């Protein structure tokens, strides 16, 4: 070994040290979420003294997917705090990690509940729940109805998507525009619910307009599957193409790819000299209204956090039982974001140090102003649809197979361009 080698080693050490120094300047060190300040990252002695742990197994997207992984973390960390439990997070690198991850959690013996995040874990949970009949599992988006130790938490995203579909179409109508769009990630069955629900909401809005104003309006619904949940550039390009064809409201269900949709919409608005839409984007899963305030009409909130929290609560309180916990509008698992939701999300962000208080107030003011520009009758109409869904007067279709989707696309006239 020569001196050059040591020099090289030294260079590496210095780079790592500088990087680490920069990254960890902050005090207190290490918070891994926007949402929680108090959940300890590491297994501290105080934690081991706790009654047990909530295990969260993330799927391959991992935290930062702006979707169920992030929301599951939110719910789990809140539950851990509320019930005095520890939180153990396990990231999956590939699908093959699901079973070993679940097993490792189950074998630990201190799992109050093990939460499997994502429908891809269905088979794995089926298997491991059988191997460990005494361990309680919850699976998000997966359907396992027949195990006493598995709670399946399902969401009726189609309902919420219908609401934002109606909101999109009515807003478009208000701005004299007849094209709306939806940008999706990879074509996986869960996303069909978003796509079809959205289209259903748009067509509902047409009927509503006819009824209220006596006008025949026909909306074009453009949809694009970008094929990716992690490339914002794809979302941006897809949205730009839609905007160029006259689309003025775009719903996204594409994880991090959707960030590009927001960017495209906000950019187009600013180019037109506006500080607020149109055009508008619609967020998904979490309350995303803060990402581009003024340009995000609302978000279709899928409260995975509520699901996880509920499952943990039931496990702690001893009321846990296997079966399906289906959360829709009625159960409060699905909703369209409100200003209150926004304030709540920002509050969490402020506590985590990720959002400055002054910024938060600005964001709320902007969103408030934007919402006030949308006429009340639109909000009321969306509310009416919501009520109808709750009462069962309106049934939003729920596609579960390819054939159904193809059929529904035809019926609802998705993707036709005038």
């Amino acid at each position, binding site marked *: 070994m020569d001196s050059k080698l040591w020099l090289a080693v030294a260079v590496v050490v210095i780079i790592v*040290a500088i990087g680490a120094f920069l990254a960890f300047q902050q005090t207190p060190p290490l918070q891994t979420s926007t949402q929680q300040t108090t959940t300890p*990252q590491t297994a501290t002695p105080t934690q081991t003294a706790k009654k047990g742990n909530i295990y969260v197994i993330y799927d391959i997207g991992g935290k930062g997917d702006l979707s169920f992984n992030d929301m599951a973390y939110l719910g789990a960390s809140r539950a851990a705090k509320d019930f005095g439990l520890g939180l153990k997070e396990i990231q999956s690198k590939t*699908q*093959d990690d699901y079973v070993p991850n679940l097993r490792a959690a189950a074998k630990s013996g201190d799992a109050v509940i093990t939460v499997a995040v994502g429908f891809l874990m*269905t088979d794995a949970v089926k298997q491991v729940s059988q191997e460990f009949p005494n361990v309680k599992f919850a699976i998000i988006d997966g359907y396992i109805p027949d195990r006493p130790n598995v709670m399946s938490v399902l969401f009726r995203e189609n309902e919420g998507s219908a609401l934002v579909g109606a909101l999109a179409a009515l807003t478009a109508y208000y701005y004299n525009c007849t094209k709306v769009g939806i940008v999706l990630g990879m074509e996986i*069955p869960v996303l069909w619910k978003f796509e079809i629900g959205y289209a259903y909401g748009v067509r509902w809005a047409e009927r509503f307009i006819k009824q209220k104003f006596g006008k025949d309006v026909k909306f074009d619904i453009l949809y694009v599957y970008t094929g990716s949940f992690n490339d914002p550039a794809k979302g941006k390009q897809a949205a730009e193409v839609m905007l160029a064809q006259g689309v003025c409201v775009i719903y996204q269900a594409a994880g991090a790819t959707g960030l590009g949709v927001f960017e495209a919409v906000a950019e187009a608005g600013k180019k037109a000299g506006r500080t607020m839409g149109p055009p508008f984007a619609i967020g998904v899963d979490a309350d995303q209204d803060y990402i581009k305030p003024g340009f995000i009409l609302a978000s279709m909130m899928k409260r995975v956090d509520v699901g996880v929290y509920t499952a943990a609560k039931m496990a702690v309180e001893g009321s846990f039982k296997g079966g399906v916990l289906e959360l829709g509008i009625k159960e409060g698992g699905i909703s369209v974001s409100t200003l209150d939701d926004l304030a709540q999300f920002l509050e969490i962000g402020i506590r985590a140090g990720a959002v400055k208080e002054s910024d938060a107030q600005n964001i709320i003011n902007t969103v408030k102003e934007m919402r006030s520009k949308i006429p009340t009758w639109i909000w009321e109409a969306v509310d009416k649809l919501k009520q109808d869904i709750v009462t069962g007067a309106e049934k939003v279709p729920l596609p579960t197979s390819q054939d159904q989707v193809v059929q529904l696309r035809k019926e609802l006239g998705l993707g036709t361009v005038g």
Partner: protein
Amino acid sequence: MRRLTFSLLNTGLALFLAFVLGAIAMWISGYDPLLSYKSMLLTPLSDLTYLFSALAFSAPILLTGLTFAVGLKAGLFNIGAEGQTYMGALGAVAAAYLTRDVSALPLAVFLGVAFAVAWSAIPALLKIWRGVNEVVGTIMMNWVAYWLVIMAVSTIFANPSQPEESVKMPEAARLTPLVAGTDLTLAVPLAYLTAVLIYVFLRYSVWGYRISISGQNPTVAKAYGIRPEQAVLVAFGIGALTAGLAGVLQVAARPPSYSLARNLANVYGLGFDGITAAMLGRGHPIGVFLASVFLGILQEGARHMQIEAGTPFEFIRVIQGLLILFLALQMVRKI
């Protein structure tokens, strides 16, 4: 012999330094390096379930690593294992779609390997006929395979009752765990056996010899009747064989799903992990085997590190990167 000693010393030193630097990074970030390493490296060995899980991870990585290693022998930088693995998995899914009994298994192997070999033939032939650099050829083919397989799994091969994945292997045709409650299936011994066969092929077979000659000096090969084009084809073909097998086994011999996920989550990235294994193993089949077991232990260890030490998963990648960086340094040249 001296070369082997250098290799071992270099690898050992690289391992040592990577772990030391990794420890420093953990320590700065406020994690416990000792506990992290203990849970990462020892916990997988402490329990048969964990150990078998680690071995199960090593199998596909070994197979794709062999693809790259055989390519290196022929002087090729064949990074097509990724796409060929997809195609192998697609072949298995096609077999499951076509027959619903035990015959699906041999058919899966046949179709999977055939698809993979056909897929690798495209960049191979483009290289031979049109001089298309194999790096470009295989990168592009990987992406095309990605979308093609996703499309196939989303349409004809979709599972009507579980649309997020393909049709499942028929129960009779599945290679189920050899030890109940673990992930150890026949895939593991099969992969290890393949490594031995590849070793024998490269060391003893006429074609293995020809590949080496062509890889080291194509001019010499040509002058003495070895056609480097054929060597390229054979190297690509053998590589596709192992990569395709990896894909087939991921579908036919990997509990619990025995299917191909719509987002390819159970085959995605295996090809690239294989490159890592091949580099760690210095392109030698036995080295690749050892490297894949090591990587399997790391992958298994990653979850225990998260559970026991709370250290984030990403550290595994950082340590792998450092490890390979130190390998590149070739620190020991003279003793």
